Every structure is written in structure tokens, then in C-alpha cells.
């Protein structure tokens, strides 16, 4: 489809107050974690995702690990703005179409939405809890910040002889 094609306004369109979107070329690499890609109109998109992101120094995981009930973040309700606001909006579409020649997206992730078309409501929720587990070192088990100093010392000792003299 040509990006600058003239498109008639259809009276049968589900949203008469919305414009027609014309996109010539779309290139999309990855869609993941409760994300949506929609071409066309819809009424509402409501993606939701709860993520427990555990990173371990040695990646050993059990299949049944993790309970959302153990973390308060997953029971918290996000602070929504009021559904109706006392604003009267009058929209005039002087041009009935939005034209985009090409769209290149590498990734759509974690409760995100990519839509070519009109909708009435988008309501996305994501809750992410990060946990990082590191193995203790003998000398700095209680002072993890020493790790960087030690690393610097090692780098100095391992320097090539031509640099050290």
C-alpha cells in the first residue's frame, strides 16, 4: 500500500471521530511479555504483567520457584487518574488520515502496545520486582563494596611488564 494513498472516509467506520491510519511498511523484531501489536481499530487494550526478575551469580533455578503473594508490590493497586475529567473535547479532523511511510521497531516488551489504528482506551499495568543473589566472598562477605578495590589491586598486579617498568 502506498504511504501517501488517498483514502476515502468510510461512514461505516466504528469510530467516526477517529482518523484512518495508513502505514506503508512495518518491520518488527520481537514482541514479548504481555505486549500487544494490533493493526486495526479496537475499543480497549488492557495488557497486564507481573514480573519476578531474579538474577543469580550462578544461574541455577528451580522450575516452581517464586510466589507473587510473598511480595507486597504485586498486591498494590496503581494510582489511577480519574476516569472522567470535567473537560469537553471537540475534535475536528481536517485531514481524515494519518500517513506513515515506514515503521521500524526492534522490540515491544512488558505490557506495551503498538497499534496502527484507533482505540478508545488503553490501560496498561506492569509490576516488576527485582532480586539479585550473589555468592559471598571470604574476605568481603560483610563488605561487598570492597570488591571493586580488590579488583583494582589485581588489575595492577597483572599489568604487563612493559608497563610496570
Amino acid at each position, binding site marked *: 500500500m502506498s504511504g*501517501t494513498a488517498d483514502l476515502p472516509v468510510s461512514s461505516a467506520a466504528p469510530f467516526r471521530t477517529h*482518523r484512518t491510519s495508513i502505514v506503508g511498511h512495518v518491520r518488527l523484531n520481537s514482541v514479548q511479555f504481555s505486549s500487544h501489536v494490533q493493526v486495526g481499530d479496537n475499543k480497549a487494550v488492557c495488557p497486564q504483567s507481573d514480573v519476578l526478575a531474579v538474577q543469580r551469580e550462578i544461574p541455577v533455578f528451580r522450575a516452581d520457584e517464586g*510466589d507473587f503473594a510473598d511480595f507486597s508490590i504485586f498486591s498494590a493497586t496503581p494510582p489511577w487518574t480519574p476516569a472522567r475529567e470535567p473537560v469537553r473535547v471537540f475534535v475536528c479532523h*481536517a485531514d481524515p488520515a494519518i500517513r506513515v511511510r515506514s*515503521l521500524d521497531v526492534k522490540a515491544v516488551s512488558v505490557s506495551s*502496545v503498538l497499534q496502527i489504528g484507533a*482505540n478508545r482506551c488503553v490501560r496498561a499495568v506492569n509490576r516488576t520486582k527485582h532480586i539479585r543473589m550473589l555468592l559471598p566472598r571470604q574476605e568481603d562477605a560483610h563488605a561487598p563494596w570492597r570488591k571493586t578495590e580488590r579488583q583494582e589491586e589485581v588489575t595492577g598486579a597483572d599489568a604487563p611488564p612493559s608497563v610496570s617498568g
Partner: protein
Amino acid sequence: MAHERKAPVCLHVVNERLDIGHIRITAVGSSSLVLIGDTERIALSSVFDTPPESVIVGPFIPLSPES
């Protein structure tokens, strides 16, 4: 309680010609939206929790399984 009749805020929007060449996006993440079109209401929420306590130094203890 007396009812106060406030005049509502009126917003007039005129959408003129919109013709875009190329859109290049690296990533859309954490409750984000890319919309080529019209909408009426957008509510995007992302809660992210990474406190200092989330770094655990010690032997790996598996998380309790889902009940």
C-alpha cells in the same frame, strides 16, 4: 450542600495533515504505548521495585514455590 454549577473546560482540537516519513524505535517497554491513530483515554502504569535489600549476598536459597 449547595450545588455549584461550574462551566466545564472546553478543548477544541483541529487535526491538520499528518504525513510522516520514517519512524525508527529501538524498544517499547514497561507499559508504554506507540499509537499511530486516535484515542480517547490512556492510562499507563508501571511499578518497579529494586530496593537495596533486593541484593542478597549469601548461599542461594530458592524462592518459596507458588502456593
